[in-house]
């Protein structure tokens, strides 16, 4: 007891020691009160990916310099993309090395406090990389989904597991790659695996015990609402996809939880699944206490082009046609960006933000006016199979009113309908489409000798209220980077070319760029320690942290 008191005295007397209080749900709800911390995947439950820190400005951002680098290739792991967004809590950074090594770092120096590496099942199979996009925190526990379908609570101080539950079967292609979201006392997550014929779901777990509280099936079974969007007398729904790839959002006033869902299975041959295939390629609004569906909106009914709605729901309030409305902004893989009423799901607007030829717009009810389907001969479709955007986080700045979208411009794929048969644990997709843009590779990436007609990239800024395109920052290659906006009107993003850069949030002017030597396939975030603002980005297999030169 005396020893403990002495230690306590020594620790609190240290100048570098910061208070580390448990992260209550109230802190998550009011993350804007502590902009020095980054407490959730998108920086807040409204998922704006917007920091209120203002030390870095358009005038001084050219003085950014690298502070530290942390290699994110896990021990004894193959080279892999690094898609995680770190959390920062009171000077401590928590992040994940692919696939599931959790680390706690000094956010000022990058020095490691601890690493936790769960033992993973060799049966794990993942469609799109042995990756993890991040953690959630509540109290003194971190929460992580694993590629073998487990959800693990980890003591944030000790780096040891608190509980570990099996959520889904890895041998059937279920994997957890998304950062969980915390709502009240629950940890909420869902599986990837739409390319393996999974039946998707969103599930909530008691944060203290790991006990499952509810489960919402993103592909409704017999007796569940929406099941009639699948063929009668068929088991197509059992392998209907509807994966969860990225973290959702939460509105405490409406008490609604929002998640985007992935493609229906099989991806590229819709013959086995006539119908709209709910709730694939949709946003679902759930009661986070019960999992009850309040409303849904399906962006791409009966998808054949892999247009997952794997996007973060961006929530804001704004004036819409003369009255204040609670809206949701959504730039979709299918090439349209949307404004929805998030209280009701009402479609307010949908407009293309890239070249689109599969639909001639969207009707007044929000249904795309589809004009193209996959054919045995091959159908050329804009945007391409990777989409107009994908899982990369957009950003919304309440100051500029602009919605910033990482965009794939003028890309196309040829879809040729091929035979497909479900076999448990095997890929269940159909015939792979072709495209001009190569797969995202690790390391330095592929060379680019394409012409602009074969695809290019952009960060685009749209006025969220009017829909007007305000500016484009054009890149020679496409981008898998998320976007961060700041309350000082700086926009940070990166791309496949290995640059991390800062733009003027109002004009799109390039203000600064740093060479990170590897492809950016993660979202930037910002935090502050001892009054100094930092910006962090994963690129290649390393985490780079910048601050203004002192």
């Amino acid at each position, binding site marked *: 007891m005396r020893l403990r008191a002495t230690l306590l005295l020594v620790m609190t007397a240290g100048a570098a020691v910061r208070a580390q209080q448990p992260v209550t749900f109230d802190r998550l709800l009011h993350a804007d009160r502590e902009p020095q911390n980054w407490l959730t995947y998108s920086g807040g439950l409204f998922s704006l990916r917007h920091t209120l820190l203002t030390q870095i400005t358009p005038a001084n951002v050219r003085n950014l310099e690298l502070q530290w680098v942390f290699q994110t290739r896990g021990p004894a792991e193959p080279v*892999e993309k690094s898609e995680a967004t770190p959390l920062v809590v009171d000077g401590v950074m928590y992040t994940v090395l692919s696939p599931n090594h959790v680390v706690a770092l000094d956010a000022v120096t990058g020095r490691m406090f601890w690493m936790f590496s769960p033992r993973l099942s060799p049966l794990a199979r993942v469609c799109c990389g042995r990756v993890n996009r991040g953690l959630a925190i509540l109290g003194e526990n971190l929460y992580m989904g694993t590629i073998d379908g487990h959800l693990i609570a980890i003591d944030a101080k000790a780096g040891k597991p608190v509980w570990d539950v099996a959520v889904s079967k890895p041998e059937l292609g279920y994997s957890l790659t998304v950062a969980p979201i915390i709502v009240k006392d629950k940890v909420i997550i869902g599986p990837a695996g739409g390319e393996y014929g999974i039946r998707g779901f969103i599930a909530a777990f008691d944060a203290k015990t790991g006990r499952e509280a509810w489960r919402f099936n993103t592909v409704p079974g017999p007796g569940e609402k929406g099941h009639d969007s699948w063929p009668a007398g068929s088991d197509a729904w059992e392998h209907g996809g509807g994966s969860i790839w990225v973290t959702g959002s939460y509105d405490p006033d409406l008490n609604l939880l929002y998640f985007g869902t992935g493609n229906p299975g099989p991806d590229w041959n819709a013959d086995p699944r006539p119908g709209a295939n709910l709730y694939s390629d949709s946003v679902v609004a759930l009661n986070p206490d019960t999992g009850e569906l309040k409303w849904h909106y399906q962006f791409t009914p009966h998808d054949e082009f892999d247009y997952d709605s794997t996007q973060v729901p961006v929530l804001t309030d704004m004036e819409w046609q003369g009255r204040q409305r609670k809206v949701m902004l959504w730039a979709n893989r299918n090439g349209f960006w949307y404004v929805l009423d998030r209280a009701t799901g009402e479609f307010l607007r949908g407009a293309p933000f890239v070249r689109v030829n599969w639909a001639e717009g969207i009707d007044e009810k929000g249904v795309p006016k589809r004009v193209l389907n996959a054919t045995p001969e091959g159908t050329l479709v804009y945007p391409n199979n990777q989409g107009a955007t994908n899982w990369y986080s957009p950003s919304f700045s309440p100051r500029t009113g602009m919605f910033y979208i990482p965009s794939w411009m003028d890309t196309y794929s040829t879809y*040729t309908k091929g035979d497909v048969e479900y076999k448990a644990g095997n*890929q269940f997709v159909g015939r792979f489409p072709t495209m001009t843009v190569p797969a995202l590779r690790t390391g330095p990436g592929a060379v680019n000798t394409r012409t602009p007609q074969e695809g290019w990239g952009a960060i685009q800024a749209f006025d969220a209220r009017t829909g007007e395109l305000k500016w484009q920052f054009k890149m020679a290659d496409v981008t898998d980077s998320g976007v961060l906006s700041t309350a000082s009107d700086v926009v940070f993003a990166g791309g496949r070319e290995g640059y991390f850069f800062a733009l003027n949030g109002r004009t799109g002017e390039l203000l600064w760029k740093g060479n990170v030597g590897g492809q950016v396939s993660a979202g930037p975030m910002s935090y502050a320690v001892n009054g100094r603002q930092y910006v962090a980005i994963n690129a290649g297999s390393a985490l780079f942290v910048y601050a203004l030169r002192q």
Partner: protein
Amino acid sequence: MTRVIALVVLAAAVAAAQEHSYTQADIENGARLYQSSCAGCHGPDGEMVPGIELKRGQFRRATGDVDLIQIIQSGIAGTTMPPSSFTETQAGTIVAYLRSAAPASGDPSNPFARGGPVTIARGNPSRGQALYDGKGDCARCHRVNGSGPRMAPDLTEIGTIRPARELQQKLVDPNANIRPGNRYVEAVTRRGDRIAGRLLNQDTFTVQLLDGSERLVSLSRADLRDFTYLKTSPMPSYRDKLTQVELDDLVAYLVSLKGLRP
């Protein structure tokens, strides 16, 4: 150590294959490799080993592209499936081919599904080599096995990566289907200097090329007044320069070029 290297190689392959984005070039290269190295046992349609239908995605062990690449590279111990010397990229292209070759629903016209796109060159490769060095004057621009200039595409392994009919077509119509890796560009600097060459790489801020003097040049776009892709190939057409028999012979020689490690 070997195991570590294998792991690294596999990892790179995982990354290459993990997204649904095979290019047409990947698929065509994979088709070549499949027909030359795999079809002997698996059959041109991938169904000759019992229990396996490669083009329908039916495998005994593999559950995804990662497994397929590993098996192509490492083989399966205790079975007749041997290891190969394919790089991760090459193995990835074979997987790309298999994934693209699923029979099209209700349409048997898919050339891949009907046994592969490879046609057998009809000509005489020895006579073709003589044409390459002589009447065709190909060696004036192209390079084979380390000999020849570098501006035009290196043909050392052209027989592995291009089918005979595509080579035939290129000889008579060089502007057809110019590959992204064989593009020529011209840059004009703000001072008025012109720099032409083969495009090697580019990004938002810079361009890398091999110029006419075989120098590796990196340019800043900010220093350029103009940058254009040349729409026509520097290669002449042999439509009226060689007879059909000579074209067949030349193609037969090109098809025989299988690289330094055939």
